[in-house]
Every structure is written in C-alpha cells, then in structure tokens.
C-alpha cells in the first residue's frame, strides 16, 4: 500500500467510533505508517451522530481537512443509515463496512448503493465473547481485514500486545478480546 487511504467513521456519541478511529491509527502507526486520527467535534451529546476520520499512508500526511471522498466508510450504528448520507463521496471501488446482523445484500438495498458492502455483527460477537456490547474491538478487526491497511498477521500480534498492556490488571480478558478479534476477521461478510 503506497498510496493514501482515507477512512470515514459514522457512529453515535458514546459508542466509541472516535476511540475506534484512534485505535486504528495506533495499530497502523505501530507498523511504521504515517497516520492521522481525528473526530469532527460537534455538540458532544450521547447518541448524537458523530463522524471520525483516519488517513493512513507510507508518506508523511500534510492535508488537514475533513475527508469528503473516503476510500472506506465504517458505520458503527446501523440506525444512522436512515438519517445520515453515509456513502456520500465514497470513492468508486471503495467500500462500506456496517455493524449489523443483516446481510450485505439487505444493507446494500437500504443504502441504495452500488459499490462494495461488508457487514459484521459486532454486537453478537461482542456479547458472546466479552459478555457486553463493546463493538470497537470486532469493528476494528473487520476494518483492518477489509481495508488491508496493515497485514492481518501483523495486526494480530500487535493487538494482542496492546491488550496485554491495556488489561495488565485483568489478564483474563485478553483471550476473550482476542477471540472477538479472530471471530470478526472470520465473520465479516462481503457483497461486491
């Protein structure tokens, strides 16, 4: 990947889309990439639609505007599909990744979108592996796989190390988080 990859995240305040974008920036940074991770700040209310952005490149990144023509769009909360034009400006050949129990075909219809659509049931994975709804970890894994911004094996090593660091006080949750990551890598489904 020599070129610049631009990703736009859509979520709701409090769901962790901003955190997920920062996590993606971090894992890409750890493999030697140049990165940007930034949210678009608005009135910070729980549940309000929010947008966050990533730029990832092998070259230094100087551009500081928001992203209007992303390579990938990530939708953390599928209810946003009805109220936010999530695919706006999405590059031809780009893809949208949606957190939903629905199939890519169903989402494609709802989005009225002709490009690539991927779905991942981050709720199910999160609840079955972590025992609660933390969509970030499975979403991050799905985004890494679909965008290819870093190789999956590198990601697996890196994320395990960062879980061990993050959960140093409760090491028993590390395998659960790793299970969430591995299931997300397997279960993300595409319709091209």
């Amino acid at each position: 990947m020599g070129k610049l990859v631009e990703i736009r995240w859509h979520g709701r305040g409090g769901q962790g889309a901003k955190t997920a974008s920062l996590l993606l920036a971090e894992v890409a940074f750890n493999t030697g990439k140049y990165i940007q991770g930034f949210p678009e700040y608005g009135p910070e209310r729980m549940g309000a639609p929010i947008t966050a952005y990533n730029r990832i490149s092998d070259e230094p990144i100087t551009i500081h505007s928001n992203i209007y023509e992303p390579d990938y769009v990530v939708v953390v909360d599928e209810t946003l599909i009805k109220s936010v034009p999530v695919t706006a400006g999405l590059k031809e050949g780009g893809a949208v990744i949606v957190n939903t129990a629905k199939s890519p075909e169903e989402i494609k219809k709802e989005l009225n979108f002709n490009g690539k659509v991927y779905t991942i049931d981050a709720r199910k994975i999160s609840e079955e592996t972590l025992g609660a709804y933390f969509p970030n970890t499975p979403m991050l894994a799905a985004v890494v796989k679909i965008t290819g911004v870093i190789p999956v094996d590198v990601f697996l090593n890196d994320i395990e190390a960062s879980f061990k660091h993050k959960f140093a006080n409760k090491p028993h949750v590390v395998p659960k988080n790793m299970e969430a990551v591995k299931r997300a890598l397997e279960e993300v489904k595409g319709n091209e």
Partner: protein
Amino acid sequence: MAKRVSLSGNEAVAFGMKQINPDVVAAFPITPSTEVPQYFSQFVANGEVDTEFVAVESEHSAMSACIGAAAAGGRVMTATASAGLALMWEMLYVGASMRLPMVLAVTNRALSGPINIHNDHSDTMGARDSGWIQLYGESAQEAYDNLIQAIRIGEHKDVQLPVMVCYDGFITSHAVENLEMLDDEEVKKFVGVKREAPFALIGQDPVSMGPLDLPNHYFEHKRLQAEAMKNAKKVILEIAAEYEKLTGRKYGFFEEYKMEDAEAAIVVINSTAGTAKFVVDNLRAQGKKVGLIKIRVFRPFPAEELAEALKNVKAVAVMDKADSFSAAGGPLFAEVRSAMYGRADGKIVTNYIYGLGGRDVTTTQIEKVYADLFNAIETGKYEVYNYLGVRE
C-alpha cells in the same frame, strides 16, 4: 535519541512541558486547550515533575499568578484559548512590559460571539500587539518543537519577553499524528535546568517590579520593550539553528514551500499550510508554478525577509483565519502588504478571509485561490478583498 510517537497536539505540548519541567504552571481550563493543564496536572500528581501547579479561578488569575511567579525568577508556563486568552488581556500587556519570559500554549479558537468552540485565529491575532512573541505551528510536531524553543527565545538575555506558542484548536490539538519527541535528557540540556533571571523579586539582589511609571520614564521603557522584540529576531534564528543541530528539523521566521520559481504564492498560518502543500504538489505535477509561505513567527514580524521571499512572484494571496473588521483586509494581509511596499512593489496582492469558526478548509478552496491568482495574472482583473468558503 529521538523517539517516534503518535500523539495529539495537546498531548505533544503537555509532554513537552513535562520534559521542560517548569517551576510553576498556573492554568484555568478552556476548550480546546483543557487537555494541556489536565495532562500536566497528572504529571504533577504523579510526581513526574517538580512543578508547583496553581489551580486558579479564571484566566485573568492564571496569567496574574504566572506573572508573579516569573517576577520571582521562576520558569513559568500555561495554556489557554479563545475567551480564556481574552480574559488574560490586561495581564498579557503587564507580563510583556515587565519583561517576563513565560511560555503560553494557545490552541487557537474563535472568539465569541456568536459563541463557537472551533478553530480560527481571532484570539491570538487580537493579542498581536500585546508585546508577546508569537510562534505558530502547522502540526503537533511543530507545536512541540516551538514550545521547546520558546523557552530559550524568551529567556535570552537580549529578549526577556513572554512567548505564545500557537496551534490550531481541534485540527491540531485533538488530531493524533506522527511526530518525533526528544529524550527527556536532550530537552533538559537544551533548555537548561533553571531560568537565569537577570532581575527578580527575590534572590540576592531583589528589585521592585511593576510600579507606577509616569511620563518621565514610561516612554523609555516602551522603547526598550520594542528593542527587545527587534533583538528577538536574531535570537529566534540562533535558537532555531541550535535546535536543527539537535533534531535535523529546520525552523526560521517562515517556511518557503516550492517558492524557487513560483509565480503565484499563498501566505498562510498553521494547519491550512499543510492542506495547501498538498494542493501545491498537485498543481506542480500539472506544471503550474505555485508556491507557499507559512508564517511561523508573527511577532516579531519578519517584514524584510518576507518581502525578499516574495520578490519574484507575480501574485500573492494572503490568507487570514481572522477578520479584523477594518474593512481593509485581515491582520496578516495588512502586515504582508505593508512589508512588500517599497521592497517588492508591482505585485498583485490579494486577501482571503477563510475558515472562521472552524469552517473546514478544503483542497478545493485552496485550488480556487491559486486559480484566482493565475486569472489575475492573465487578465489583470481581480478583487483585493475576498471571503473564501462562506455562503453569500
């Protein structure tokens, strides 16, 4: 050894402050600067710095406490933005005229009203005549680098002035990006462990400071203050050269980007310079002779040097992320056009007010500015005063 890190601008500045380990930080929180004192107060609580952290009840008090501590001979830092800087206003002038080196990190944010938390430069542009040195930075890297150099610039014996280190609110303060940090030991060696105050309220030879100064001396003191700002020009370049030896990163009064044979140039401050560089690269790839000047030092203003850098262009657009409501252009425009008068005459010089209150600045907007400049060169027809990206 430099360490490769990914940090937000506010994190970079807070870590820089930790490495500098000042004697006193007195601060009051305000968006988007709050994280700086927030992170720093954690370093204080963890015992990672020796700093006395003074939690105050307002920015006026924050700057007053900083002035008191600096007058006592301490190395003093703080951070603010927007209305916080406005509330410091009276004390900014007091600190500068008392010739107290302090470093104030400003995450640039629009001034009220209407109230707005997002980025423009109306806060620090309003404070441009307060007697503070002003350094501006495009990225988290530059905010960090400017912060470390600011300590040495302000404390230099020929300067003895406070320094603002300005970077864009949210765009730089809250975005995580790559940068290189120095080792703690390298920073300690660069800034020195203690400030050497030539005069102070306490110590071996205590002096009175800040008394009433009537017509028989006030003017002389202001004249000396003006001389200190002139001296700062030489010192800023000396410190930059020393910093370059340490880091390999080159700093001056401004950065010239692809200016060698440029016919059309933009002069701009802070993060928009990065977006404009992207446009310059694209236009250069199409064979268009475009360049960019990014102002780093706004006070003192590098008038002669800037005129020299612009002497071969045909047209220049000066971009202001603040309106001064002068009905004759923004503050940077007024300075740049004045600097060119008599030194680089016969150019097309236009002004664009842009990005107020956080209006996103896109590559399309910058492309339009260059297109306008080429159109002006070809037809001789152009508007001097323009607003970019606004609905009219």
